[in-house]
């Protein structure tokens, strides 16, 4: 039961952290909680379909469908997170000034909320589908012990959600002055880490060269399967044995989004143009 709880916890930790951070980062956007809920629900439904279609997705693109599917989802999430950060760069100050009332900017608010929905939905979809598959495996297994294992799975889900909530609640305690800077930095690293993961799937599908494998090896020092390694992987994209191409993607996304944020900030009074991330 304990082993089951750990596996499920590990699977949903990343999604929980993303949801926690994004939920905090979008505070003050009117109606964001409802959109957050809708995103999670859409993600869960999607996760069910992806889990059901695992075999079929895998067969696409001469057997590399799963890799390309994952890379596409991660890539889309990176674009949305980057876009979110650019949007917050021009609106964060206004949100911080008046955390409740930005009703004058309805159209922009709607755009920000649909970003929120997509980011959360994608995170839940990707991590959730693996959890669904794993739990299905337990439920379908013959013989005893499966009830206690399912209980373990439930415990893992509860623990993962609790961590996501703790991150959310913890972030909300940051004084407003620094709040949007802090969440902006967190989102920036989330995006970079996801870009590196997307690169890994593209390398796995033989679409991209790996450049160097691995570029470094810290697996004896900080194994990726350890608790700290897992947390760092989810938060800043830590990998014990990354390939060179992953680091290229990581740095590229980091620099592009950070530069965009700086540029918008310098521009002062919100530029009307919709800054695009990629």
């Amino acid at each position, binding site marked *: 039961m304990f*082993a089951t709880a750990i*596996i499920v916890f590990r699977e949903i930790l990343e999604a929980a952290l993303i949801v926690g951070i994004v939920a905090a980062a979008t505070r003050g956007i009117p109606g964001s909680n409802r959109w957050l809920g809708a995103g999670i629900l859409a993600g869960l439904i999607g996760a069910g379909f992806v889990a059901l279609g*695992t*075999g079929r997705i*895998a067969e*696409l*693109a*001469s*057997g*590399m*469908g*799963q*890799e*390309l*599917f994952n*890379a*596409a*989802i991660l*890539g*889309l999430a990176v674009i949305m997170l980057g876009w979110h950060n650019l949007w917050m760069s021009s609106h964060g100050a206004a949100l911080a000034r008046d955390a409740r009332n930005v009703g004058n900017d309805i159209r922009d608010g709607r755009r920000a909320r649909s970003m929120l929905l*997509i980011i959360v939905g*994608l995170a839940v979809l990707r991590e959730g589908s*693996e959890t669904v*598959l*794993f739990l*299905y*495996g*337990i439920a*379908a*297994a013959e013989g005893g012990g499966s009830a206690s294992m399912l209980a373990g799975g439930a415990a893992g889900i509860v623990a993962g959600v609790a961590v996501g909530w703790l991150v959310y609640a913890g972030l909300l305690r940051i004084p407003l002055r620094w709040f949007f800077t802090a969440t902006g930095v967190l989102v920036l690293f989330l995006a970079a880490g996801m870009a590196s993961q997307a690169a*890994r799937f593209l*390398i*796995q*599908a*033989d*679409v991209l060269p*790996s450049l160097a*494998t*691995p570029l470094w090896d810290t*697996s004896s020092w900080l*194994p*990726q*399967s350890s608790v700290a390694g897992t947390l760092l992987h989810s938060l800043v994209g830590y*990998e*014990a*044995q*990354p*390939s060179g191409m992953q680091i290229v993607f990581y740095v590229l996304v980091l620099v592009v989004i950070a530069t965009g944020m700086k540029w918008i900030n310098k521009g002062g009074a919100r530029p009307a143009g919709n800054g695009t991330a990629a």
Partner: protein
Amino acid sequence: MSRLLLLALFLLFGTTSAIAADDEFKLVIENHKFEPSEVTIPAGKKIKLIVENRDATPEEFESHALNREKVIAGKSTATILIGPLKPGSYPFVGEYNEKTAKGVIVAK
């Protein structure tokens, strides 16, 4: 939207990613175990690992050393491209049944 992206990716890369004459190595998952649990492959070469999951339940082939991660549905076969590798051993696990599903790729 993601399906559209997938399609775009497929059209862009799907045809080029297929490599014709690679060395193939077979691996079977049965009763949540890998058979054989040790696969020897040539170093410095790209190979295809064909993994057949005979169990009814899905499994996730995972290896940080190989930098590979792939879910294999129950009663299905998946292809995992590996290498070129430096000589050495590269452990992998079935993440959903980590206690029993263990193996290692040895590159020589």
